[in-house]
């Protein structure tokens, strides 16, 4: 088959009637533009989720008390019996546990010499920073000794620090948290938005657990030296799911839960939760992809329609080409190229429009813009495939014309 003559005549046909070509391409343009936008938003969301997972850590398990039923009424998440510091000690004994920290938090009013700020005070052990893979960018972390002695020190998240000390120089300063004087010893590096997991993770103050319990949150009536949650860092290479099971077994024992009775606590892998949420995003993407596919198909039908018209209009030309020696395959290729060229050009225009759309979305939704080569290749490939699929029937029709009838066609 002769590619040269097919490509040149396809290009010629395309530009001989620009308005008609443009109208035909409209469906493809819209389809490709929506493919672009859909994929870019999907990729952007995926990148965000990946970032979140890496900020939470895939091998961190979080223990939370279960819901408490009182008089048949569910008291809501975390209302059940809290954990005790002895639980943390027991968990640390497990061979696969690299580090564990209790957590105890409360919303608190912080006052510096410069400003007031309502934030969260987070009680933790010295291993809090290891477990959360969260380091100070300035100053230092509190030590195990300071935790032991209940030192009134705190490490501030970026947001809390910025609001309490708009002029900087927070380290060494004294703040009052719910009237308790506390010394700022460090500032944590930024973790950013956690997208649904408590909003801004940097709006926090981390302080020794015992001090927070004794002087800010107060104790628990049922459990002495209680913690509201435990975070466990599982050793690298150990299956997190196995760890989850072992921890559940241990905690059921410690909380004296009879076989057959339900857990009154939960062992959660936040990375898993984020992944589940990602799956929901994926479903949304699939829906959008379906919409894009439908508009591509509608566009393809439009292309097929115009190609059939074009074949009819140019029947005499086809007859002439056959008379001077074009094989059926040559004619097939010519019209197929025309359809593919039409769709690819539409795809390029659609891509440009999609790019604008993605850019606009990124500005409005303040989400990262992701236009990868894969997206471009997919969008163009989809357009060309539509041309190939929907151009085939008209092209075959042209190729199968009877030369003499085609020549006699008016």
């Amino acid at each position, binding site marked *: 088959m*002769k590619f*040269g*003559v097919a490509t040149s005549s396809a290009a*010629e046909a395309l530009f*001989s009637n620009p308005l008609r070509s443009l109208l035909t391409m409209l469906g493809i343009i819209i389809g490709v533009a929506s493919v672009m936008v859909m994929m870019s938003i999907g990729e952007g969301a995926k990148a965000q989720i990946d970032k979140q997972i890496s900020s939470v850590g895939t091998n961190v398990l979080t223990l939370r008390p279960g819901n408490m039923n009182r008089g048949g009424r569910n008291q809501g998440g975390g209302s059940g019996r809290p954990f005790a510091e002895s639980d943390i000690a027991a968990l640390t004994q497990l061979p696969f546990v690299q580090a564990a920290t209790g957590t105890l938090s409360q919303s608190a009013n912080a006052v510096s010499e410069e400003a007031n700020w309502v934030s969260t005070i987070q009680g933790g052990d010295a291993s809090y920073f290891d477990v959360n893979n969260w380091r100070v960018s300035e100053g230092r972390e509190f030590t195990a000794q300071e935790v032991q002695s209940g030192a009134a020190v705190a490490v501030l998240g970026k947001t809390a620090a910025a609001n309490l000390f708009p002029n900087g120089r927070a380290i060494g300063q004294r703040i009052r948290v719910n009237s308790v004087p506390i010394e700022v010893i460090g500032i944590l590096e930024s973790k950013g938005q956690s997208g649904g997991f408590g909003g801004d993770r940097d709006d926090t103050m981390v302080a020794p657990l015992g001090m927070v319990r004794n002087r800010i949150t107060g104790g628990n009536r049922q459990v002495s030296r209680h913690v509201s949650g435990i975070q466990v860092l599982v050793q690298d290479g150990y299956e997190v799911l196995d760890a989850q099971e072992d921890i559940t077994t241990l905690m059921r024992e410690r909380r004296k839960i009879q076989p057959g009775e339900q857990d009154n606590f939960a062992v959660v892998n936040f990375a898993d939760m984020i992944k589940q949420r990602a799956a929901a995003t994926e479903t949304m993407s699939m829906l959008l992809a379906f919409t894009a596919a439908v508009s591509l198909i509608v566009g393809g039908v439009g292309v097929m329609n115009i190609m059939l018209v074009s074949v009819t209009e140019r029947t*005499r*030309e086809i007859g*002439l*080409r*056959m*008379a*001077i*020696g*074009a*094989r*059926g*395959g*040559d004619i097939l290729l010519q019209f197929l190229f025309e359809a593919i060229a039409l769709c690819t050009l539409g795809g390029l225009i659609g891509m440009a429009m999609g790019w604008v759309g993605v850019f606009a979305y990124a500005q409005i939704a303040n989400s990262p813009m992701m236009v990868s080569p894969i997206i471009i290749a997919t969008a163009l490939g989809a357009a060309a495939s539509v041309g190939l699929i929907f151009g085939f029937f008209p092209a075959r029709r042209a190729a199968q014309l*009877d*030369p*003499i009838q085609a*020549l006699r066609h008016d």
Partner: protein
Amino acid sequence: MANDTIAKDRPIISCRNLSKIYKMGDEEVRALDGVDLDIAEGEFVAIMGPSGSGKSSLMNLIGALDRPTSGEMWISGRALSEMSRDDLADLRNETLGFVFQQFNLLARQDAFQNVRLPLRYARRDLGDSDARAKECLQMVGLGDRMDHRPMQLSGGQQQRVAIARALANRPRILLADEPTGALDTKTTDEIMHLMQDLNRQGITVVVITHENEVAAYAGRKIHFRDGRIESDTAHPDVQRASGARP
């Protein structure tokens, strides 16, 4: 010389008991009814007859554009009934050149591109196609009109472009279906002189016409009536090209 002898012995176009029947509703129309015909290489043949006599049907069959209902035909020794659609396309490309009454030039392409078209469909190597297209246009006296589109050319010039296109692949047979039907007397003479020249160069020419002035250029006149050959006469004044050679 040996080649000439072979060519004369084995006609370049040969038809045996050729029939073409069209079905128009319930009626059968016998466009061709058992035609036997031989045309030797180098002949200049005029096919004449009233409309509906079967001359166009014969032309379509000789041009490998159509297949007969029955009978067999050979073109340069090859039986057409044994050839596939693609083989027929290649035969049209390599061996046959067509000239139509309505010129059938591609309106969006200039003269040069029109002439080059058959070369682009050629499957055998014909050398530099651009050079060949120019050469053919010069041959028909349009060397200075190569970048003109059909609309910018007169009827006679358009037909010259069509002839140049027919010549591009160095065919052995030139088939012309009423080539002067859309032209005035003066241009008719020019076109027919051109055909005569080509015939003198050794190309077999078959022309369908109903004009005696046109048929006068041919060395042999075949009259059709009702799908049959009514008469087949050699023109006394015009010698066959092959016979004219020493």
